[in-house]
């Protein structure tokens, strides 16, 4: 097994030999091999890999031979997840570097990557990453008007005009936010920004 040519993705800063045992039992810092859907392999510190509850359970259940296959995660996404673990696992919740990383992580993520991260974090059972990614989407949609939200999620408006009018009327009471501008003038931000015919 050890002599097979294995396509190994070397993580930065981790010094490994060209041919590496799958999970080193003897070394002080055990490493776990994770395999993405394309077959690309990632060698990750066990500490970080346990950032995923699913992987953690597999390790505890004795899965030590070979690579852990992750058929639901692509290599680019797995790479980002590993990055996340490296910045968060073992750190305190208020760690400044971790917060900075999160900010950049979300800001630079393209829409499809963010989607994939949510799916991956859910599959891998990594709650903090799921929190981060879902919050990013929540922050995006809260600023959208109803039409934009429909477009974003690919939702068809299935209300009849009467039903829609009734819901809008209800919303009007809730959406009647009064904001106070700098000079103390009150302005009414009425309605749900619906594009009406």
């Amino acid at each position, binding site marked *: 097994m050890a002599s097979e040519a294995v396509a190994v993705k070397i993580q930065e800063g981790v010094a490994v030999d060209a041919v590496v045992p799958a999970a080193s039992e003897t070394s002080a810092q055990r490493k776990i091999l994770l395999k993405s859907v394309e077959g690309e392999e990632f060698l990750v510190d066990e500490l970080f890999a346990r950032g995923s509850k699913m992987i953690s359970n597999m390790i505890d259940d004795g899965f030590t031979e070979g690579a852990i296959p992750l058929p639901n995660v*692509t290599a680019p996404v797995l790479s980002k997840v590993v990055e996340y673990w490296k910045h968060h696992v073992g750190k305190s919740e208020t760690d400044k570097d971790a917060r900075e990383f999160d900010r950049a992580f*979300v*800001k630079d993520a*393209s*829409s*499809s*990557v*963010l*989607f994939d991260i*949510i*799916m991956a974090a*859910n599959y891998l059972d990594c709650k903090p990453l*799921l*929190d981060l990614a*879902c*919050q*990013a*989407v*929540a*922050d*995006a*949609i*809260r*600023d*959208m*008007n*109803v*039409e*934009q*939200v*429909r*477009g*974003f*999620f*690919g*939702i*068809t*408006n*299935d*209300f009849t005009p009467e*039903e829609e009018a009734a*819901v*809008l009327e*209800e*919303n009007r*009471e*809730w*959406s*009647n*936010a*009064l*904001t*106070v501008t700098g000079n*103390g003038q009150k302005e009414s931000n009425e309605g*749900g*920004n*619906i*594009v*009406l*015919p």
Partner: protein
Amino acid sequence: MVGIRDFGSLLGPKNGSSNDNEYLKNTIVMARNGVRNTSPSRQKVIKTKPRGFDEETVATFSKIIHPDVQMEDSIWGLLPEDLLNEVLARVPPFLLFRLRSVCKRWNSVLYDSSFLKFHSQVPSHGPCLLTFWKNAQTHQCSVFSLPLKTWYKIPFRFLPDWAFWLVGSSGGLVCFSGFDGLSFKTLVCNPLTQAWRVLPSMHYNQQRQLVMVVNRTDRSFKVIAASDIYGDKTLPTEVYDSKLDRWSLHQIMPAVNLCSSKMAFCDSRLYLETLSPLGLMMYKVDTGQWEHIPAKFPRSLLDGYLVAGAQKRLFLVGRIGLYSTLQSMRIWELDHAKTVWVEISRMPPKYFRALLRLSAERFECFGQDNLICFTSWNQGKGLLYDVDRKVWSWIAGCALQLCNSQVCFYEPRFDTSVN
């Protein structure tokens, strides 16, 4: 691979004015496995044809989209329902109402048990102030969200006319009291779900100082009726338990000369301030017994508000000094072990002067989670002291609504039931 580099561009213009052409141009979506569909002749129907848009506008959409890229179904449409609920649970509660008009399924999301489960697990929205204003003809309830710096008017049409006093709020529920004819009644409601219920009458029909407390772990709430408004010293303490849906009688508060209206509930104990002499009484809910706490109050203390903080902390807020030029507003914390009030902060003079233009000006003081709020009765100003960060700040955007209103902290929650 074509992708969206800047997620923010999905939003289009920030001011929310619908500029759908811009928006759709930027929404270049890909199939799930990241492979572009490059078949040129396929003109995919845009699933989200906006209602009311005429054919000409729809045709314009197709022209704007880059010829190489086809409009695929939005990947976000493939998000499983439970993950969509995770996302929606993280949208601020007041903004969720707007999204109910997206489609029928989203209209009922606020009642969806999966959404409510996630909603109960995410961190709280943040501190909000609820104001209640009432005159003989009408009443008005508004909520100011500190995180969003915005006021929201909450429809409170269900509130009966007799509801006159805002008792307080806890865990998303709000409690009112008042006289319905000759009966002193209490009402509990969840403003976000509009659910409400009048509680059964107390054993003794008299106006009492009340406090409501929600226990989110066992999904119940209690209302404690301590002292009688008029100083009737023979009344037993009554406690309403939502699990039993009835009031139970407990120990009569030991004879004190006079009770103030200052109370705070903290760590399953009700603290009540007594006047003449100034002192502290404590009621333990588990045992139903009163106890005198022999903590000496600061000399020449005026006002003396009791405020409950987080993690069993109890604060005392008041003015020291009889003369206006020498007055200062101070905050003490009870050292439970040593039974002594320890001064932890003083309001900087500039805030004090701005809050109370005249030394006798009325103000209210209340708190939640180590935030202490001061509202000036006449000026409609709100001042906040963050005990943990030791920071004083004006509450921006808060003016006017506070005048002549009863105010309390409020935590918007969909998942707290009135039953």
